[in-house]
C-alpha cells in the first residue's frame, strides 16, 4: 500500500517537534530490534495535557506516528490519552502497511511511559503546579 496524503503531509511538515523545557514528564523508548526511537515530552495541568512535543529517529512511519500522536493528545485528559490504542493511531495516520505497525506501537508505548511518569507523580502526592 502507498502512504496516505495525511501521512505525506506530516512527513513533510512534522508538528510539535522538540523538547519541553518545563515538561511534567519525558519518556523515550527504543525498538530494540530495529533501533527506531521516539521521545515524548508532556506538560500536564489539572489532569489534562496542555502541551506535547516529540523527537524521532527511524523510518517514515515512526517519524509520522510521533507527529500525529502529539497533535492528537494535546487537550486530552490523562484518561483519554491512556485509552488511545495502536489501531486508533494507525487509523489517524491514514493507515500503515502491516510491516510498519511497529512504528505506531512504539509511539503508543512511549506515550504510556510518559503517562506512567505523570501517574507516579500524582500517586506520590506531589502536586503538579499550575504553570
Amino acid at each position, binding site marked *: 500500500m502507498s502512504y496516505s496524503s495525511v501521512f*505525506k503531509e506530516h*512527513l*513533510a511538515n*512534522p508538528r510539535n*517537534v*522538540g*523538547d519541553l523545557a518545563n*515538561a*511534567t*514528564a*519525558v*519518556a*523515550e523508548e527504543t*525498538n530494540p*530490534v*530495529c*533501533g*527506531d*526511537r*521516539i*521521545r515524548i*515530552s508532556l506538560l500536564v495541568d489539572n489532569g489534562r495535557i496542555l502541551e506535547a512535543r516529540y*523527537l*524521532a*529517529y*527511524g*523510518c*517514515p512511519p*515512526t*517519524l509520522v506516528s510521533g507527529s500525529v500522536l502529539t497533535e492528537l493528545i494535546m487537550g486530552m485528559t490523562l484518561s483519554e490519552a491512556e485509552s488511545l490504542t495502536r489501531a486508533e493511531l494507525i487509523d489517524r495516520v491514514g493507515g500503515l502497511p*502491516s*510491516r*510498519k505497525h*511497529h512504528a505506531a506501537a512504539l509511539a503508543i508505548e512511549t506515550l504510556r511511559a510518559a503517562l506512567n*511518569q505523570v501517574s*507516579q*507523580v500524582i500517586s*506520590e502526592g*506531589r502536586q503538579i503546579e499550575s504553570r
Partner: protein
Amino acid sequence: MANRHIYLDHSATTPVDSRVVAAMTRALTETFGNASSVHGFGQQARAAVDRARREVAALIGARQNEIIFTSGGTEANNLAIKGLSSDEPGHIISSAIEHPSVRGVCDTLEDRGWDVTRLPVYENGIVRIDDLKKAITTRTSLITIMSANNEIGTLQPISEIGKLVAAKRAEGQKIWFHTDAVQAVGRIAINVDDLGCDLLSLSGHKLYAPKGVGALFVRRGVRLRSQSIGGHQERERRAGTENVPGIVALGEAAKLARDEFSERTSHDAKLRDLFEHLVAERIDNLVFNGDQKHRLPHLSNISFRFIEGEGLLINLDLQGVAVSTGSACSSGTLEPSPVIRALGHNDELARGSIRFSFGKDNNEDDVSFAVDVLANSVKKLRELSPLNKPSVLELQPLNSR
C-alpha cells in the same frame, strides 16, 4: 507533491535509451521470427541475435561465441556458479559484499556441504589479495568476486585475482574465476583478457537497455552445466527460445556504451564529484563510504549521522529526488546494510547510508537541485532526531527522577 523529478538511482536501473527503444521496436515488429526456425523469418531473427552477440562481445573484449544471453544479471550469476559446481562438494571463495544473487547461491552451496570462504573487506570496501592467497586451498574450484560493488561502487582487484588464478592453473589446479560485473560494464573499461576472468556477468538494464535481458561471458574451454533443460539454444548452455527484442536491445545498448564510453564516464564523474563537493560544503557529520579513488565514476554512497536512511529517502522522494538506501526497516526488524557493516561501521552509519548514482541524462542543474533538497531534508530530520540532543535523563523533570 513534487513538480520536478530527478532520477539519481542509475545503479538500480537506467532509463531505456530512445535509440535502444527504436532498435527493440524494429525487433518486435519486423524481426519477430523464432531464431531457431529455418525459414526466412527465423533467419532474420538469428542474424539480429548474432549482431547483438558481436556487440556485447566487443564491449568486453570477448569472442562472439563466448557470450550466452540470459534474462539478466541474477540468472547469469546463478548459471555461472551453479553451472560450475559439481555434485561433489568443494571449496568456493567469495567476498562479504557480494550481490544477493551471488551471496544466495553460495549460501545454498554451503547448505549442500560446500565450504565457502567469504573474504572480508576493510574500511575501504576492497578485498585484499593476501587474504585471497591464504584462502585458496587445493580443494578450491571457484572464485567469485564482484568487479564493482553495487552499493558503494568500490572496484575489486579483478586483474590481480585473474593473475593469481592463472598461476594456480599453471601449477595444475582446476580452478575457475567468475566476476559479477553487472555494475561495472559500461562504467569502467572492461576487457576479459586483461581481467583474466573465466566468466563474467552483465545486465542490460544497468546499460540503458530494458529489464529482462543480460549475458554471461564464458571463456572458451570452460565447461558449464546448463541450468535449464529444453532446446539447444545458446550452444546447449541455456535452453529456451531467445528473447530476440531484449537481446537486440542489449546489443544496441552495448554498441552505444562502447561508442560513448569516454563521454559518459567523464560526464558522470564530473557530476558525482560536483555533487560530493557541494554536499561536503553544506552538510556536516557525514561519512563518504568506501574507497574514494578505486570506485565507479557515477556513484556516491554517504552515511548521514543522526538520521535513518529510509526516512531520508522518502523525504527526498516526496520532493522529487529518487535515490536508494541499503537498509530497510520491516516488521520491526531492521537489516542495516550488510555492505556498510562490512566496512566496520556501526549500526547508526549502516542505517543512515544513501546511494546516489548519476547517469548520462543528468545535468548540473539536477545536481544543484538535489543538493538543495538533500541539505534541507537532512536539517529537518536532524532537528527531529533525539540522537543529537541531550539525553532524556537530563530532561526528565526533577519530581520524576
